[in-house]
């Protein structure tokens, strides 16, 4: 019952560039028939997108080429918290809400950074219920994660893939200001 090979139905006039279609086709051939195929495809496609999200045209094309029903792809894309259906900010500030971080006050960190970036809490519609808000100018996305596995450094925050351990509010504020003023991490 493994999904079919590259389905032969001709892709409808898809708005994707040829280069994007080719990238996806090669991915499908590479992962075809292997366990975890859809997850790996979506992860690779999202990683390649500049704003780290899955445009609906890409999902449409993927459904057509793999024969997986569109409804199932949408169900998967909205079930897992890693996938985003809306463009994410250039910089991501991720606050760990794990138990150790919670007991060491990571909720105050979250409130502080939201205050600093002027964000109101918005849940993305349709996707997994998580706190994920992007600033209007799309420079920052503040999100939470259930646990980084860095509990010894609690409370932990991650800014653009680099982990900050034993963060207090002032240190976090300084890091975010540094990026705001354009200094790259």
């Amino acid at each position, binding site marked *: 019952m493994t999904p079919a090979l590259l389905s032969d139905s001709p892709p409808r006039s898809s708005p994707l560039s040829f280069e994007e279609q080719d990238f996806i086709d090669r991915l499908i051939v590479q992962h075809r028939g*292997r366990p975890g195929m859809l*997850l*790996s495809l979506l992860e690779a496609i999202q990683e390649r997108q500049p704003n780290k999200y899955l445009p609906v045209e890409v999902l449409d094309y993927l459904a057509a080429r793999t024969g997986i029903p569109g409804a199932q792809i949408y169900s998967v894309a909205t079930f897992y*918290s890693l996938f985003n259906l809306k463009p994410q900010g250039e910089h991501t500030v991720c606050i760990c809400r794990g*138990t*150790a971080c919670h007991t060491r006050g990571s909720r105050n960190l979250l409130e502080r950074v939201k205050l600093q970036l002027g964000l109101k809490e918005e849940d993305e519609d349709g996707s997994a219920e998580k706190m994920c808000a992007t600033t209007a100018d799309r420079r920052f996305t503040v999100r939470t994660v259930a*646990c980084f596995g860095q509990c010894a*450094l609690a409370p932990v925050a991650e800014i653009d893939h680099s982990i900050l351990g034993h963060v207090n509010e002032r240190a976090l504020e300084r890091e975010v200001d540094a990026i705001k003023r354009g200094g790259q991490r």
Partner: protein
Amino acid sequence: MKRISDLSSFNDVREAGLSKLLPDRPRIAIGMGTCGTGNGAESVYHAFADAINTRGLGMNLARTGCFGFCAAEPLVNVYLPGKPLVILQRVQPNDVPGILDDLASGRMPTGLALCKIEEWDHITGHVRFGVGLPEIPHWHEVPFFTGQKKIVLRNCGLINPNEIDEYIAIGGYQALYKVLIDNNPDMVIEAVKAAKLRGRGGAGYQTGIKWEFLRKAQSERKYIICNADEGDPGAYMNRNEIESDPHSLIEGMIIGGYVMGATEGILYVRAEYPLAVHRLNSAIEQARECGLLGDNILGRGFRFDLQLVEGAGAFVCGEETALIRSLEGKAGRPTPRPPYPAEHGLYGCPTNINNVETWYNIAPIVIKGPGWFTETGSAKSPGTKVFSLVGKVNNTGLVEMPLGTPLKTFVYDVGGGGTHGRAIKAVQTGGPSGGCIPQEMFDTPVDYESLGQLGSIMGSGGMVVMDEDNCMVDVARYFIEFTHSESCGKCIPCRVGLDKSLYYLNRITQGKGTEADFDLLDDLSRMIRDTSLCGLGQTAPNPVLTTMRHFRHEFEDHIRAARCRAGVCEDLALSPCENSCPLHMNIPRFLQLLKEDRLEEAFVSVVMDNPLPASTGRVCQHPCDNRCRRTGVDSAVNMREVHRYIADAIYPSDRFDALASDIAARRKPLTGKRCAVVGAGPTGLACAFYLCMLGHEVMVYDSNPAAGGMLRYALPDYRLPKDVLDREVELIRRTGVQFTFNTQVPRDVSLNDLDGQYDAVFLSIGTWKESWVYLPGTELTGVIPALPFLEAVSKEQPVPLGKRVTVIGGGNAAIDSARTALRLGSKVTIIYRRERKDMPAIPEETEAAEAEGAEIVFLATPHRIVGGPDGRVQAIEAVRTKLGEYDSSGRRRPMPTNEIIRFACDTVILAVGETVDLDFAKASGLKIKESGLIEVDRYTLETSRSKFYAGGDLITGASNVSNAMGYGKKAARNIDRRLMNVRRWEEVFPSFEYDQAPPAHASEAPRHHVEEVDAAQRATTFAEATIGLAPVDAMEEACRCLRCDVRNGDH
């Protein structure tokens, strides 16, 4: 990398690995797990790399995994041929030159040494490093490692995870080779069954039986899966195992594949572990190159391959059927069992799933056999389990202990007790599916069954320590918030049940919860546990049910008194400092009023919240400092000293009379009710003040000639000058409170008389009786209890004090007695049976006593008082103690050694604690607790006899002045509520208009400390020992406040 097909090629690779592990020259290995890198290990590595090649040193530099002691990271292993391996802790880049200098000259850098390892049992192999370096402790002598037994973590932090030959060097893949040679899968299954290995994912199902089931399943395609989803917040052992020793996992799975007849293995690793994914993929690649994966493994004709799939952020995918659906390209929603995965798993084929840690136990069982394995751990749960010990504990890290080790060993011995000396309240085990175990039950052995009986589970091994600053209702709410957001939404009990449970928990933490909410939540939690489809729903209510069972009083505080003692539930308090203050002073208000230079209004605000601001300003143990959020910036605001300054500024000034009459004018119209207060100590004065302001007629009785209780007759003048106390009593008198002195209840006035004359009676007698020490020689002259001594001094009565005084005890009474004796010209020694950090006295007072010449002897218990022929004290003998087991109060119990020490002295002051003199209460029918204290209703403070209330030390035992006054204030509120049957408490308090904007930038000034008169000079007089804040310092201290009472938008 050479392909291994027989024993000789095996040994070639082993030799290559050994030469890397034990080279003929120094080798430095940096602990580079993700947490190591998070602690700066990356920059340490580069510092070493640059220094080595610029100085052209002949040393090997390598990366290694994590040895498990996260609190001491970055860890660096240093190996010198012939010497033991030494592990350095908290290495920073600027330590690198020093280390290299030592190594270059053949010396082992001992400066940062944590521990040494002379030889190491990798279980699949043995490595000898060398002997010597006596000054460095063995690894198992370091408290964090004592009692640990590393089976799963056998290689972590000792070998380079990126080099397969180092793994083979310590005996890696020997177990696989043995299994393939024996070619007897059933024997391996019997071994795993005999070892009674249980699943380390949390459920604890017998691994052997699971394997046998799959082996018997008939299908041409069978899968085995490693579940590395590890979604439990607070658990990271799987991450560390994979990052530090990926090959043990691979070897375990190849053996599993061979034994169960599976052709393909899948490693499902969560996306939040990028380094683990990277190292595992490269390890798989290296294993394939060596012929350990793919076709004809080790030349024995067995075909098996591994594939890694990254999860995508769904905690529920830790459940096996959800994981399988996720691999099939569907949303991770669990499916019913039966059919079990072993008969109908991935793509319908038989599938076996085991947690990461379970696979790590396979090679040791194969090499050493089931008998050896069952020697560790308990009968029903043999072997070890890795726990991630985190939260409010000093030594955080990964701890691998034999199953059945009691909880207190984890928390106190390995963990080193609570951080900042805070009292530990509970441990949460098993993550969101586990439960909270209270501190009194820390003797519970940690294994599947015992934790189950307490309503918790072992789960993945997360162990989060919580202290008095954690609110257990908030912990339950936190876990339900987590499982509610991770629920897959398929079945009703979990999807909607958790949503409603969260609603009730939110209401309770916002102070809106009712008893009905509590019952509905309890009933609903049981329904969710009993009817949910999968493990997530079935265990999600555990945190709620256990906190309700073990911490019910905290729920009741939130519901009946809208009170969160831990100060976490922000809606129940104006601010963290106000919440921690027993008198609930509106601290941000008087700081802001002072900041706006409105001293007189600040004074009124302070006095109305706390009628003895100057006294408490000097002697309170300031719990507010522990909760001030400014500690997140630099250090707490010195709130006590600021309200002392405000009171000291007004009391002697000419504004005092006007302000006193302003306050008296606020008194509510006379209600015609008469109240009696027995005991004019701080508790009684507080209750009298508020009852009077509420319009009742108040008469205070006291056996002493003046008001103040312990403040006057126990606290020496240098701590609290009598004129300051007189001013405060004067203000209270002016509001209308009447006093009857030299009248002892019940001798002069019986309780029945009070019952007849008054509408309500508040008992606040305090603890005046010295608890007696049963010690040979206490009958000698020269042995005096502390309180009578202090009382005599305060009443300027003659005191039979010798030249050499010994004080026994560690509380405030002991320190006050010692400093008083110093001032009377004696030489003083204090004997205390525990350590400095255990002393109940306020730390600043203890330090002041030492500065004034008092000598403190710790860890010594009085054994005998030696008397001379004239029956006078000549000396005292004490027994040295060492700290033994932790008792239920969370402190180590002092155990006597046989070493006796002798102090010559002519006076012994006993200050080991005060109790309540309760003969009269017993006579009058008041119910007494078995601890000898009066029993009262927790919320109304009413005793067993109607109209009679009690508060302060009388019901809590000796505590401190602000705590006692808090009870007086609370009693006044309840008495008024009962007498007038209407809520009017808030009307007594004035309201002030003041700036409600939090400071854009709170002043950068550091905390201002009170100036002390220099020790030599103050030790000779009873004049006040500390000088209050100067006006400009008080103002600046007020500006440091972050105004946590201001909320953006209404809450």
